[in-house]
């Protein structure tokens, strides 16, 4: 690779989006670029965005699949909203994404696709490459299809086979733009396609061809360099939220000295957790694909009774189906974790798009007074920590725990230091001792109010529990009115006492002042970035961010946090479910709201606009 570039610009952070037809290999191109970004040493976060259909109609907006990566020489905590560079493999993907490309940004298109009905199917009347509508962007209109075919000619590939590498040609162009090396990706091809040397050669040739094309036609223009992010010494990897959730559970089981059991039914976007755990038979994980959602959770309850760390994973509609069984877990006071990877609802809704609208369902979606612990992860990486935490709380407090993640953090990935089991806190399941003369199924620990866990097989502790109301201590069936109220109170109080172990809510930014931004769950990255932006815009104002991971119970200092600010704005990807919950629990404060329900994550710009209005009032 010759060094004849006239202008290399150093950037602090960049967002690149790969977009094409589903089937064009955008997810793969994006992942390869992410792998390569890891070798450079940037910090990064990614977000795949794809249609619900496996192969939507060719060349249409509904068929556009995307993969966005945000990387930088600084800490990156979201996949970014506006792209600096867009790869659009056809007119539809250009049309679908142009609104989210920075003015003056770079757009790489496959010029070969901007002909005929590809243009009209995307909703254009003329080719946008010719009508001047892209004059505000740096356009690289490469004949990707024909050059990809050309590059493979000597290998004897037919056009249909050759076209499968179009994504790799586009990737080559991006490698040139960011001064990347090709070697690590060549190695990937050699390992991945080891059984077919022609495919290895084809991909290598095409990647180099893309790179060289960009160098030749673009040599006098700008390329970019993004410096290393100065990570602390150590071992790193990147991980998706769903994998992190699965691994957090594996770590928790090992730490607790229990077998891990998963009872689950496939549902987008939670399925990858099931897949990840089905692949971990080598660690003794018993992952069970049940016949439906109800069987999934009920089997987890059975496994919990029998002594496993039992979990079930699902998304919104599946959580609805599990409701009755969650009530059973509440009544039997068994430790299970219910992971809900939220998606757009109601009903089947937007299966592949993100939303935060299962919160009230998680908090209240049961018959009777059936409190459970609800916690929410806020980034792909910390899905690991909160999965671990959910298991720890369930096992140590003998309660069902609902862990909320969402499509955005579940599918997205970020760089994390490789977790070490030794660094994680201890987990002490409340296992009863054989022949304990004091054992009674509903005798409680004074501090936590957790009952003891006597699992079948334990000598001397045979007992029977179930969904009918339990008599205090003995656990016998009881319809006594006083007892019912007592037991309901104890179950509630047990959940509230989890607040004793979760620590205080932290404020990021100013610790008191004009505006407190409040959020929860998967919106952390966007909210943190919006805090930084709004502080630049209003240097004189004091603005903080309280981003909640613990929802029920709330951290004990929540009231103190809210007291310190003149205004509170609760930002959520729903119509205000957390705001409603706060109004119930802390009615003394006024909550402004910023809500979005488009199946998309927050954009920093829209948040800053919302804060600006409040700050200028």
């Amino acid at each position, binding site marked *: 690779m010759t060094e004849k570039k006239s202008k290399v610009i150093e950037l602090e952070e960049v967002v690149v989006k790969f977009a094409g037809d589903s089937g064009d290999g955008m997810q793969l191109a994006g992942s390869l670029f992410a792998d390569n970004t890891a070798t450079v040493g940037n910090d990064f976060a990614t977000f795949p965005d794809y249609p619900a259909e496996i192969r939507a109609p060719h060349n249409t907006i509904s068929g556009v699949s995307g993969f966005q990566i945000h990387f930088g020489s600084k800490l990156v905590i979201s996949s970014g909203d506006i792209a600096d560079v867009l790869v659009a493999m056809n007119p539809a993907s250009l049309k679908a994404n142009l609104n989210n490309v920075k003015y003056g940004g770079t757009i790489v298109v496959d010029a070969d696709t901007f002909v005929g009905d590809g243009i009209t199917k995307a909703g254009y009347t003329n080719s946008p490459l010719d009508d001047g509508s892209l004059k505000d962007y740096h356009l690289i209109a490469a004949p990707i299809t024909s050059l990809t075919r050309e590059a493979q000619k000597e290998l004897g590939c037919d056009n249909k086979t050759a076209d499968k590498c179009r994504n790799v040609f586009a990737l080559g162009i991006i490698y040139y733009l960011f001064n990347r090396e090709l070697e690590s990706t060549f190695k990937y091809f050699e390992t991945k396609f080891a059984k077919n040397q022609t495919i290895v050669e084809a991909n290598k040739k095409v990647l180099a061809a893309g790179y060289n094309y960009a160098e030749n036609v673009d040599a006098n223009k700008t390329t970019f360099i993004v410096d290393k992010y100065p990570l602390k010494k150590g071992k790193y990897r990147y991980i998706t939220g769903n994998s992190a959730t699965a691994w957090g559970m594996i770590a928790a089981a090992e730490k607790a000295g229990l077998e891990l059991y998963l009872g689950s039914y496939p549902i987008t976007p939670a399925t990858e957790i099931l897949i990840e755990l089905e692949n971990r038979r080598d660690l003794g994980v018993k992952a069970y694909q049940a016949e439906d959602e109800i069987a999934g959770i009920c089997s987890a309850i059975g*496994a919990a009774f029998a002594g496993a760390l039992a979990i079930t994973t699902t998304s919104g509609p599946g959580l609805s189906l599990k409701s009755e069984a969650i009530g059973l877990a509440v009544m039997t006071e068994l430790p299970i974790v219910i992971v809900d990877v939220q998606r757009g609802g109601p009903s089947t809704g937007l299966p592949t798009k993100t939303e935060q609208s299962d919160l009230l369902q998680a908090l209240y979606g049961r018959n009777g007074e059936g409190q459970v612990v609800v916690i929410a992860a806020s980034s792909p990486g910390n899905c690991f920590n909160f999965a671990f935490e959910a298991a720890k709380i369930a096992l140590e407090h003998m309660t069902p725990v609902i862990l909320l993640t969402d499509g955005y953090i579940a599918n997205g990935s970020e760089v994390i230091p490789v977790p070490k089991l030794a660094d994680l806190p201890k987990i002490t399941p409340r296992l009863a001792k054989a022949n304990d003369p004091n054992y009674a199924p509903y005798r409680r620990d004074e501090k936590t109010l957790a009952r003891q866990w006597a699992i079948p097989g334990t000598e001397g502790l045979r007992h029977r529990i179930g969904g009918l109301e339990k008599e205090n201590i003995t656990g016998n069936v009881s319809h006594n009115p006083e007892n019912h109220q007592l037991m309901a109170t104890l179950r509630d109080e047990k959940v509230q006492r989890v607040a004793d172990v979760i620590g205080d809510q932290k404020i990021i930014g100013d610790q008191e002042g004009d505006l407190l931004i409040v959020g929860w769950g998967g919106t952390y990255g966007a909210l943190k970035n919006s805090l930084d932006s709004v502080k630049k815009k209003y240097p004189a104002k004091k603005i903080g961010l309280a981003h909640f991971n613990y929802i029920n119970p709330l951290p004990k200092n929540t009231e103190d946090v809210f007291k310190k600010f003149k205004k509170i704005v609760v930002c959520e990807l729903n119509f205000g479910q957390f705001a409603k919950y706060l109004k119930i629990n802390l009615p003394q404060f006024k909550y402004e709201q910023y809500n979005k329900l488009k199946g998309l994550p927050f954009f920093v710009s829209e948040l800053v606009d919302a804060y600006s209005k409040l700050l200028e009032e």
Partner: protein
Amino acid sequence: MENILKLTKEDFISDQMVKWCPGCGDHAILTSLEKIMPQLGKKKEDILIISGIGCSSRSPYYINTYGFHGIHGRALPIASGAKIANPNLSVWVTTGDGDCLAIGGNHFIHTIRRNMDIKIVLFNNEIYGLTKGQYSPTTPLGKVTKTSPMGTIEEPFNPGELVIGAGGTFFARSMDMNLKTQEEILLAASQHRGTAVTEILQNCVIFNNGAHAYINDREHRADRLIHLQHGKPMIFGKEMNKGIRLSPNSYQLEVVNIGENDITVDDLLVHDIHQEDRGVHMMLARMKAPDFPVAVGVIRSVIRPIYSDLLIEQIVRAKNSSTITNADELMQSGNTWNVE
């Protein structure tokens, strides 16, 4: 093992008051279960009884083992999870025709399909008892109940057909008051590795009294029931002069009289519970009055790998072929890099 051998029925009687109606067939089933529990060859702590909702589903409270009273229709997935988590447990499910075949129908066929090692005791009284007299999936066509004032217009399920149709490996049937047959088949079920379904034709004295009276009537039952026994020709009747054979013309079962038309015992079907092919077992399970005697006893018992064995086999195989042996190694695996 010594302790196991010493167990008696009394070890399994719980301190809870039995609240079934006087005269209910459930009492007899409970007695049978308590009697066979000491014979399972298991420590009493290793027995787990799980149920759904309904009169039958109260039985875990009345038997002193580990027990779990679940929610409507869901006993089988709860039991499946328990069995997978701890394959050493002897897992029993007590359930009724409504619990198991209506709300729990899906779980029933899938548990059987997987050959989950669970003993299902299906109390079939052809009515909803605990919810007070509505028709169930086994209520005969045309029967007037609270929710079918003009008679049901739904064809009932035959549990045996469902079991065998779903690839079941064990199906047996008995009458609630016939303790001898009942204990014999429950013991056979306990020894079967796989999903063992025992249907017990049970009488609900309040809402469906006499549902099985036609076949169980003391005076006529010898002619209306056939007790199938492995390796024995299918003979029944007060005079032991009737039998079942495969009709040479239609390849269907038919009732014949021994001694008539040159028919001898040698012409009768010999019961083979281990026959892999489902055909004859299906026909035997389907036999119904008044044209046929109803079959009791073990109808089918074949060997197929059980779910938890296959799962453990896979775990062992995966452990042997993987370089990852703990969570740390997993987290270090794949694409990682060092920052110096």
